[in-house]
């Protein structure tokens, strides 16, 4: 049986474990948007949305949508007790000013020194769009990128230097993929965990820069295997 990489949901599940109790958190497009569903029951986190909400709850139930209460992906959401509304400029005082505890974004490429490219594939049609990703990347106290380890056509996405247009330089702290959890440190990339069934060597093979690791790299802890 060929070994299975993690699903997008499993990446989200693993990423959810990075959220400490009481944290103020912004989640970006893509896999990050799946994370809220996996926050452990005994952990309370407050979700920030760059359109001016702190304390977003789950998606609104069908029939109960209020289109004045949407998240940054236009999805009707709800509030938790203690939530607050504010303007977009105040929302970005929070992002850029370093007030959020953890931000989790999707990624197209992450470099050895933690540069992130996540807003535009070179040569793609259309104007592209930056959105809030640059403000969030620059300001995040801790920035986690969740993404598949390889692109659809098998290219490595963790690279020595990004070839895609950058979102921000030296901003990523941790990368969580379908193969591994990797920390970006001043000494380079450190392999913290591997996906169940994979070896550090197999992860290294799909990763352009050299990964450092201890002798025994644990497997990611997941409820759903």
């Amino acid at each position, binding site marked *: 049986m060929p070994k299975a990489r993690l699903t997008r949901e499993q990446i989200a599940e693993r990423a959810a474990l990075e959220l400490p109790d009481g944290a103020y958190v912004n989640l970006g497009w893509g896999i990050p948007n799946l994370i809220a569903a996996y926050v452990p029951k005994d952990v309370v986190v407050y979700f920030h949305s760059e*359109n001016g909400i702190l304390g977003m709850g789950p998606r609104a139930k069908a029939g109960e949508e209020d*289109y004045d209460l949407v998240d940054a992906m236009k999805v009707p959401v709800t509030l938790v007790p203690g939530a607050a509304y504010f303007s*977009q400029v105040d929302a970005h005082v929070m992002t850029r000013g370093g007030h959020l505890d953890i931000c989790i974004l999707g990624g197209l490429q992450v470099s050895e020194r933690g540069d992130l490219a996540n807003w535009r594939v070179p040569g793609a049609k259309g*104007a592209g769009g930056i959105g809030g990703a*640059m*403000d969030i990347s*620059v300001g995040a106290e801790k920035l986690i990128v969740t993404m598949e380890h390889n692109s659809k056509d098998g290219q490595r996405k963790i690279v020595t230097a990004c070839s895609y247009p*950058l979102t*921000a330089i030296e901003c990523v702290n941790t990368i969580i993929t379908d193969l591994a959890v990797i920390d970006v440190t001043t000494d380079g990339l450190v392999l913290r965990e591997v996906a169940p069934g994979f070896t550090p060597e197999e992860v290294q093979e799909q990763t352009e820069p050299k990964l450092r690791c201890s002798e025994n790299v644990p497997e990611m802890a997941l409820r759903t295997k």
Partner: protein
Amino acid sequence: MDLAVADVPDGAIVMFGGFGGAGFPNNLIQGLARRGARNLRVISNNCGTGDGELGILFKNRQIRHVVAAFPGPGATYFQQQFDAGEVELELVPQGILCERMRAFGAGIPAFYSPVGVGTDVAKGKEERVIRGKRYILEQALGADYAFIKAYRADRMGNLVYRKAARNFNPIMATAAKITIVEVDEVVETGTLDPETIVTPSIYVDRIVVAKGIHNA
């Protein structure tokens, strides 16, 4: 409605509030479409959703230049005209888009920003190291008109918003020569709690009452 936008000339710089389908002054936008002013320079987080929001102004080819953070995949008319080189785009990080407007309203001509350092956004901008970190210089961004959407106004122009429909609206109100607001209802002056007013009347020039239009 049409009266409120009747003096917007060709070539005007116009800001539009709204984000994620919420807080768009859609009635004012449609009034401007009917008015037909051309060669507009617009400032807005996105560039419309089909015919909705700013879409109608692109469809009518009224817009020449746009400053936006996320034009959006649904901005069909904009994307066509952009690919054809018929409309100019300045792409700005969303928080910096807000911050540049705030700076204008606050009498700050320019500020240093950590956002976009080392990226395409930094191209052509002064870079400077301050206390050991790299920053780029960003310029204030103002407009001739701000078209905004609020929930409720009093007759004097004090405004409150509804939920996440607040978004860009209060900051745009401070950054334009003439601010025109579309509201669900107008109440008597003195009935809004002074503690909870988000946009004080000093920033509001014209008020129009209209039933909100939502573009999904």
